[in-house]
Every structure is written in C-alpha cells, then in structure tokens.
C-alpha cells in the first residue's frame, strides 16, 4: 500500500462517484448536510449490488449448485471485509444484523435477560441515541436491574468526575456507550470508560454508528465487548449492519432470533444451535446488502479512514467560526478538538423545522428534530435542534451556503 498517513482526500473528485449530486433541488445544487442520518451511495456500491443481483444471486449457505456457492462466497467475503475493517480476530465474531438498533437489541435481549437482575446497574449516557438507550431501559425494567445514565455537561461532554458515586448503590453490569454523539458530535473517551467499567466487571456495549464511517475503528484496541456499526451511514445500503462481539461472550449467550439457518439440529424434543456467527443470523440474510456493505468498506478504505477523519476536521475548523458569526446562533457540543463532523445549533428561537424548510429552498438539506436523543434535548433545554453533518463528499462552499441560508432565516424572522 502507498503511504496513506498523509493521503489527502479530494472531495470534489469523490463527489463524481455519487449520482445523487447530479440533480438540482429547487433549482440549486444539492448541499447534503445530513450524512449523520444516512450517507449517500457511490456508483461503486450501487454497481456491486446490481452486478451481484444480475450475475451471482441465489440464496446462500445450502445451495449445492454453482450459483449458490458464488452467492455464499460473496456474502462471506463481505463478512471478511467487515472483520478486517474493524480489526476483529475472526469472522466468528462478526454478526450481520439489520443495523445498530438490531445489534444492540440482540445484546440487550440475548445477554441482558440471562445476566441482569435486581441489584445490577445498567449505565447508559444522556447522549445515547435511543437505539443504545431504550433497549437497555426496557431490559433493565424486565429484569429488575437499575437503569442509570451518565449526565452530559454544558459543553456537551460526559461528566466523568462522579462516575464511581453514580454506581455505588449496585453492581455495574453494562455500560452502554456511544463512540461519537449523533447530535453533538462529541467523541467520547472510550478506552478510559471501558477500563473503568471492566474494573467493575461490566461489559461495554459501544455504538459506533457515527464513528465507523468517519474514523478508524479497531475493536481490539478499543477494549469493548460489543461494537455495533451500520452500512447505510458509510456509503453502503440500508438493512445491513454489524455486531462485533467477543467470542467467549457470544459463545455463552442464548440465541436472540430463532428459526432457519441458526440451528445445528432440530428434533421434536429439542434444537441445538449453529456455530458462530450463524447462531445469531436466523432467516435469509440481507445478501445483496451485505455485498453492498463489502463494496462500501472497500470504498471508504480506499479513500482512507484517517484521511476522512482529517478532512472532516478541516471542514469543522472551517464551519464552526463561520456559524458562530451568525448573530443569535448557539452551537451545542464541544470545540473542534473533541468533535466529529456534526454540528447541532439553535438560532434565536426560530423553530428548527422553519430553519430546515427555508434552507431546503436553497437546496441545503439539514436535519431538524430531536435526533432520537430526547433525554439529551431535555438536558440542553430545547425541544429540538437543527443539525448539519459532513462526510467525505462535503464541500466548503456547501457550508457557505448553509451560513448564507441561516442569514436568510434571520431576515425572515427578524
């Protein structure tokens, strides 16, 4: 491989890979600033899925015929790509799921129902996406465990000084943590929190949905027990995500969904389970979606995760001061140093829906709402925020158009 450490990302060139940018919205070029919700898809991914359907599609794993073998090879090849992408030791630890929500539900049910009870504490954070919050709140309730959340301070960072006091009334069993906040862009100190939680015998369940598309994720270095990420936020299709889990934990866990493919032997009396990771993959898998995810992994890896991270930092350094110059605009979350390419803000009491609607008329797509972060919105004291988020195809002039649009919002509501 060439020297990638300083490889520079050429967003303008990459953009040509994305057919969606060939259209205009309300007569303006599309400025898509909503990649934290879902990313756009390059031809390489769309083409890989179409080619797979046109040349190699069949159901997988049990076909004796040539086509079935090729489809299986493509599917399992995607699993190997996912393994290498997050530096897992083995593909036995790489479970395909629908998305991160499904990955976390799998852990919450399959691990949580068997391992949680009264006196146990499940600790999430106030900045968790509902996907790593609601399943734990629910399973804690079902099992009699206590559900708590690490508070967020006014900078949008986790308050870590009173961690011990937070859990001193019980046994910490689960830390449910996001790597990067989908609302604030906060990058959390995962290694520090993971060693703290491990010292107390807990497992760490990491939501890497906003991290894996934008920075290198190494599951062995992170020191967590489960890590979820999803394809559609990293140039891949919807309907395919990954749960990585430590093999010894996955081995000991009960299955979650039951049915076809996840079995070893079924009799009237009992059923035994397939080996990892198939034990957790009941039913026909999203086969072409997995192939698409594999192509997306190739795509972002070729661009380089280090290069993507550096480029988004440049965009942040460009955007944060320009947004701060808009009178009445308040940015939530930490300074550029501790932040990924996500900026949530409010503007002089104008409702985020009105902001997003006016921006849309200039072809600028941003998200307005609670971003599946209702506890965080309560903490920030707002019902909703407006959020702009970046990816490898974002251009600085799109940030200029966002800022110009916000000035227009101010004029409209002056």
């Amino acid at each position, binding site marked *: 491989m060439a020297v990638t450490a300083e490889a520079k990302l050429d967003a303008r060139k990459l953009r040509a890979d994305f057919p969606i940018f060939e259209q205009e919205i*309300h007569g303006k070029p599309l400025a898509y600033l909503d990649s934290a919700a879902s990313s756009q898809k390059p031809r390489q991914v769309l083409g890989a899925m179409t080619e797979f359907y046109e040349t190699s599609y069949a159901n997988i794993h049990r076909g004796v015929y040539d086509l079935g073998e090729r489809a299986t090879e493509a599917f399992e090849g995607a699993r190997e790509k996912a393994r290498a992408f997050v530096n897992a030791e083995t593909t036995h630890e790489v479970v395909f799921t629908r998305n991160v929500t499904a990955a976390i539900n799998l852990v919450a049910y399959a691990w949580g129902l068997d391992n949680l009870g009264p006196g146990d504490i499940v600790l999430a954070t106030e900045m968790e996406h509902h996907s790593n919050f609601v399943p734990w709140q629910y399973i804690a309730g079902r099992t009699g465990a206590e559900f708590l959340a690490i508070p967020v301070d006014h900078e949008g960072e986790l308050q870590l000084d009173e961690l011990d006091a937070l859990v001193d009334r019980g046994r910490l069993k689960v830390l449910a943590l996001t790597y990067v906040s989908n609302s604030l862009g906060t990058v959390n100190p995962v290694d520090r929190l993971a060693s703290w939680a491990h010292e107390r015998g807990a497992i760490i369940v990491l939501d890497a949905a906003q991290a894996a598309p934008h920075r290198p994720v190494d599951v062995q270095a992170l020191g967590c027990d489960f890590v979820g990420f999803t394809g559609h936020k990293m140039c891949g299709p919807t309907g395919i995500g990954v749960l990585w889990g430590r093999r010894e934990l996955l081995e000991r866990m009960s299955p979650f969904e039951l049915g076809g493919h996840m079995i070893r032997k079924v009799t009237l009396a009992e059923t035994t389970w397939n080996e990892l990771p198939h034990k957790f993959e009941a039913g026909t898998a999203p086969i072409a979606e997995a192939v698409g995810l594999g192509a997306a992994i190739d795509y972002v890896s070729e661009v380089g995760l280090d290069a993507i991270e550096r480029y988004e930092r440049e965009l942040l350094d460009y955007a944060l001061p320009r947004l701060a110059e808009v009178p009445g605009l308040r940015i939530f979350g930490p300074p550029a140093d501790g932040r990924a390419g996500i900026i949530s803000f409010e503007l002089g009491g*104008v*409702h*985020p*829906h*009105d902001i997003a*609607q*006016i921006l849309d*008329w200039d072809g600028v797509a941003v998200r*307005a*709402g*609670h971003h599946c972060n209702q506890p965080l919105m309560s903490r920030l004291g707002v*019902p*909703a925020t407006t959020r702009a988020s970046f990816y490898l195809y974002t251009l600085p002039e799109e940030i200029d158009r966002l800022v110009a649009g916000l000035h*227009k919002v101010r*004029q*409209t*509501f002056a």
Partner: protein
Amino acid sequence: MSELDNLYREVILDHYKNPRGHGVIEGADVEAEGMNPLCGDEVSIFVSFDGDKIEDVKFRGRGCAISQAATSMLMEMVKGRTAQEVAALDREELLEEVGIPLTPIRLKCALLGLGVLKLALHKGKGTPLPNEWAGLAEDLELR
C-alpha cells in the same frame, strides 16, 4: 426572497409574530392540549361558550411558525361560530387560509391547533371527532 414569499408568506409570519387570540381564558368552560412529538409543537386551547356559540377562544403554545400561525388564524376563523359548525369544519378551510403548499410532515404542524380545538369542543359539547381525526389524534398526542 421570492421563493420565501411563497413559503413563509407575510401573513404567516405576521400571525406567528403577533398571534391573534393568544393567551389564557381564566375560568374557561373547557380546555384541551396537544403536541406534535415529531417536532415538539405544543398548543393549548381555551374555550368559553354562550349556549352553543363559541363566545371566546384563546390559545397558547410554542413551536414552528406553521403550527403557531395556523392556530392563530383558526382563532379568528371560529370565534362567534357554534361548536357544531366548527366541529364539522373541513380542514381544507384552514389550509386555504394558511395558503402554502405543505409536505405531509408540515401538514401535522398546520393541523395541530384544529385538532386541539375539535377535541376541546368534543369535551365541552360532545361534538363528534370525525373518523379522519382518529389517526391524527394519536399522532398529535391530544389530551
């Protein structure tokens, strides 16, 4: 600004910035509230009756310009009419007044106030909540 004129017509901004019938009726005959959980729009409506006639109606709330302006317009439209008449009010009548094209998501914002008002009339005068409102009532967390 011509496109914006289309979308946020002067009249909507005017109603948003200077809402008509804004406030609380102390000792109102009935009140109801609702919210749009999607964007956090909130509206409470207070009604006092003279017989079946809506003698006075006021609202308070917070949220996007569309939800608040549409509720303000509604206050002007219904004062002095009977509960039965307003309960049967077609939503198109309000949407015409709002007068801008609305996507399905923004439609819920525009109709929040009308939903809350019909609920208040239902509570106060037992007027029917038409079927078409049933789904919306759930979406809008009317109570």
